[in-house]
């Protein structure tokens, strides 16, 4: 598929999903707007936390050499496939009344959902960032070593140098956060008007047999993910023209 056809396919998909989403939101049902708003808040908060911690962690792992590093890299890669329900159970145990963080009273709150999604997103972003930065590091290491660049400075330079490639890592994290259902269901409880997000609402409405609402919510979800991907793709294309 050439570039023009690929762009057309993106536009058609965006228009179809966007129109469906618009039709739903045009009703201005405050409950739906609330669900969409909370979904975005939880996922973007988790993405921010995952990115702020995951990128430096991945960069540090890429430039560091210490005993056990390989095992850590393998473990981090394995955590990319961590089942969300497992994360949900672990966060539930930590936040439940008898758990170590029970005194904060966070269970069944949006904060608990942000914590669970952050735990899912962080290893994914760190693992992808580690691979991207390690490839750059192998190219730059001889000159950095001769110049006398320290590890911390190297981490900063590599993060700046790979900033456009690292959008892939953050996009992967966003995709995981937005589409996740198991963990937020367990730690959020799917409480209407408080912790109900798009994925948990879709699961609930489907089980109730309201497929139309499920499909429309799915369209909104897809539109958001597709829109963000289009923006990221455009940014990457612009950056490769502008910065080489």
């Amino acid at each position, binding site marked *: 598929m050439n570039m023009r056809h690929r762009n057309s396919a993106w536009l058609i998909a965006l228009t179809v999903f966007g129109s469906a989403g618009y039709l739903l939101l045009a009703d201005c049902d405050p409950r739906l707007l609330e669900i969409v708003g909370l979904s975005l808040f939880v996922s973007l908060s988790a993405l921010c936390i995952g990115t702020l911690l995951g990128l430096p962690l991945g960069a540090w792992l890429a430039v560091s050499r210490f005993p056990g590093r390989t095992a850590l890299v393998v473990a981090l890669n394995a955590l990319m496939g961590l089942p969300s329900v497992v994360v949900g159970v672990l966060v539930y145990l930590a936040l439940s009344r008898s758990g170590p963080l029970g005194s904060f009273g966070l269970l069944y709150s949006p904060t608990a959902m942000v914590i669970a999604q952050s735990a899912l997103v962080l290893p994914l972003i760190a693992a992808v960032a580690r691979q991207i930065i390690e490839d750059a590091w192998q190219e730059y290491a001889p000159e950095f070593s*001769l110049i006398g660049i320290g590890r911390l*400075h190297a981490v900063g330079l590599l993060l700046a140098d790979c900033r456009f490639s690292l959008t892939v890592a953050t996009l992967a994290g966003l995709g995981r956060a937005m589409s996740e259902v198991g963990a937020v269901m367990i730690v959020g409880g799917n409480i209407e008007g408080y912790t109900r997000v798009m994925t948990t609402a879709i699961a609930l409405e489907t089980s109730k047999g309201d497929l139309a609402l499920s499909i429309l919510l799915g369209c909104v979800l897809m539109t958001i993910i597709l829109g963000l991907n289009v923006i990221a793709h455009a940014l990457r294309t612009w950056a490769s023209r502008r910065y080489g």
Partner: protein
Amino acid sequence: MFPLRISGLCCQPNGRIVLDGLDLELSGEGISVILGANGSGKTLLLRLLAGLLPADGGTIRWGGAARPDGRLAMVFQQPMMLRLSVHANVEFALHPQGLSAAERNARTNHVLARVGLAHRAGDCARLLSGGERQRLALARAWAMRPRLLLLDEPTASLDPSATEAVERIIREIRTDGAKILMSTHNLGQATRLADDVVFLADGRVQEHESAQRFFARPQSAAARAFMQGELPWRIAFDH
């Protein structure tokens, strides 16, 4: 730091003997050019001197010391370019020297002007042409004020005008007091730049002479063959 004395240097990357008991002594002035056929170990020697690889045997003494006490810089055949501005690609290399931001900025602007890239200081380094990239790499090395500058075929794949610009910069860096040790395949460039020539073959220094003497009358058969444009396999085939 000088004289730089190399004794019995051996290196076998991937089990293949490339340097086999190499001896060499270099003074701290001028431009020394390393000549030799592909695979003769020119780049390997430069990387060993830069400390980027461990030797399998032999010693390198820097004015009697095991480590160089002056600054050392190297420009690679394909220099690294960060996806940052031309200015930032020089400036970052001055951070480890503990200079203030104003000093780093002033020194960066100075060297960029000297290599003719001041007008491109804000452009992205990855968008420069091959010749401009090599000039930027030289500016980065120059800004570090090295005592020894190692150049690994700095004009390979450059056109004549870009080559001329790079050679002018190399001469200016020498005038600034840096010792330059460079490898090249280009006999014309060696004639134009070299104060002395080190000819490598069979993992050793076959000749180390002043440039004038080397080009007037090469002593070894390998050097004579190299200058006549004959390759080792060709000699073996003919004989």
